[in-house]
């Protein structure tokens, strides 16, 4: 079903200097198997077209993926002209994007 990713996933994002990070997690092993398959670095870029380079890390023990977006924030929060210079809202933006979620996971 086409629904916001946040229907089944939580997220939190923030800054490290000029890089943003975006953690996404789900609550069951089945949902993680789907998430790890669905949310590749390339797919993240489709969902968040403002992202440049994307590095993905897997944390199956937390049923989570962590994305690092190097350079998204320029020279850091004090210098960035980005709308959200500390990337605080990036995770909630991702959660609001619509994706096809298997009904079994809902």
């Amino acid at each position, binding site marked *: 079903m086409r629904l916001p990713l*946040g229907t089944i*996933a*939580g*997220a*939190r994002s*923030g*800054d*490290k*200097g*000029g*890089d943003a*990070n975006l*953690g*996404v*997690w789900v*609550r069951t092993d089945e949902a993680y198997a789907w998430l790890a398959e669905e949310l590749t670095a390339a797919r993240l870029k489709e969902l968040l077209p403002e992202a440049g380079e994307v*590095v993905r*890390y*897997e*944390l*199956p*023990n*937390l*049923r*989570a993926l*962590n994305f*690092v977006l190097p350079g998204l924030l320029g*020279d*850091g*929060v*004090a*210098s960035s*002209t980005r*709308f959200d210079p500390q990337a*605080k809202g990036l*995770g*909630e933006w991702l*959660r609001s994007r619509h994706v096809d979620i298997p009904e079994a996971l809902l």
Partner: protein
Amino acid sequence: MIRIGNASGFYGDRLGAVREMLEGGDLDVLTGDYLAELTMLILGRDRMRDANLGYAKTFLRQMEDCLGLAVEGGVTIVANAGGLNPLGLAAAIEKVGVGAKIGVVTGDDLRADFPESLTANAYLGAWGIAECVRAGADVVVTGRVTDASLVVGPAAARFGWARDDWDALAGATVAGHVLECGTQATGGNYSSFTSIDADRPGFPIAEVHADGSSVITKHEGTGGAVTVDTVTAQLLYEIGDPAYLGPDVVSHFDTITLEPHERGARISGVRGSPPPDTLKVCLNSLGGFRNGTTFVLCGLDVEAKADLVRRQLETALGPDGLTWTLARTDRADADTEETASALLHVTIKTSDPKRAKAFSRTAIELALGSYPGFHVTAPPSDGTPFGVYRAAYVPRDRVEHQAVLPDGKVITV
């Protein structure tokens, strides 16, 4: 077990949290994180104005209010509120006059190695804090130590961990990472906020055990929630590679076992490995001056309105250093003025403070001669200096990490 609370996740966090945590239940240690990359810049500018400043002033107010309470209750306070001037903060706390024994951690300031920077601070680890705690300090103030060290130091002192007790150090580092942002571990800024009582989350507590495992919890009767989900959210905050580098240990986040616990969530199984032989340094320098404003574009012809004002401002001021973004927040045929409006943000970054100031005048001079419906969300200011952040790495032996014990004795860690 050692029960370590947190009462601050940043410089500006809930002022009353120290009192809340001291009065709300049992604690052995109360920590507070006051330093972010941006905070170092703010403190650097404070220090430029007055060399006696450069520490988190709110922490001093909290100590004026609560230090007696902490000493009476036997709770050790550990905070990185010293910022760029931990000795200055210690002297100010001395004047609070409750006779508390104060330990100080220094050695992070590397301005001598990076003279071009406004601030240059190595991220120190936990061992200076551990020395101060072992020496019986009631309060330990530090400069730039890693946020997690505020938890690792007191735990290492309590359990007598060795420098190579990697797994225990990694476990405590993970607990420290969970605590360092205060209520972000207890349901603050939490995706599923609608499923908990999110109105006023209590601050977090880690009950750290001798093996480095921990239970994350909060004082009874406080708001928010501590669950596997709220702790997961914080574990994922501001991390990169799952091999999480620190000055004392590399903590492997992909080895964390996180389980529900009757009073919160339990963290165990964390594996640690030896740290890199360099220390990270946080550098801030002044990058120039910035200014900005937001034009409100209401109704029809939004793109053309944006083009007109952009052309006008760029002609009058020159286009250098201007960044524009047009947010199409407007809707057609809207039934409120606000939802009929788009927002055109413009920022200027320049090395010339006069140009940053001229930006304001130039933007406002357009007010009666630009697009129909011209107004701005707030008038532009005179412009402010902005900082540029950069990380550097130095060999460990370039840094003299020192603990100044309550009796004045100085130990090199």
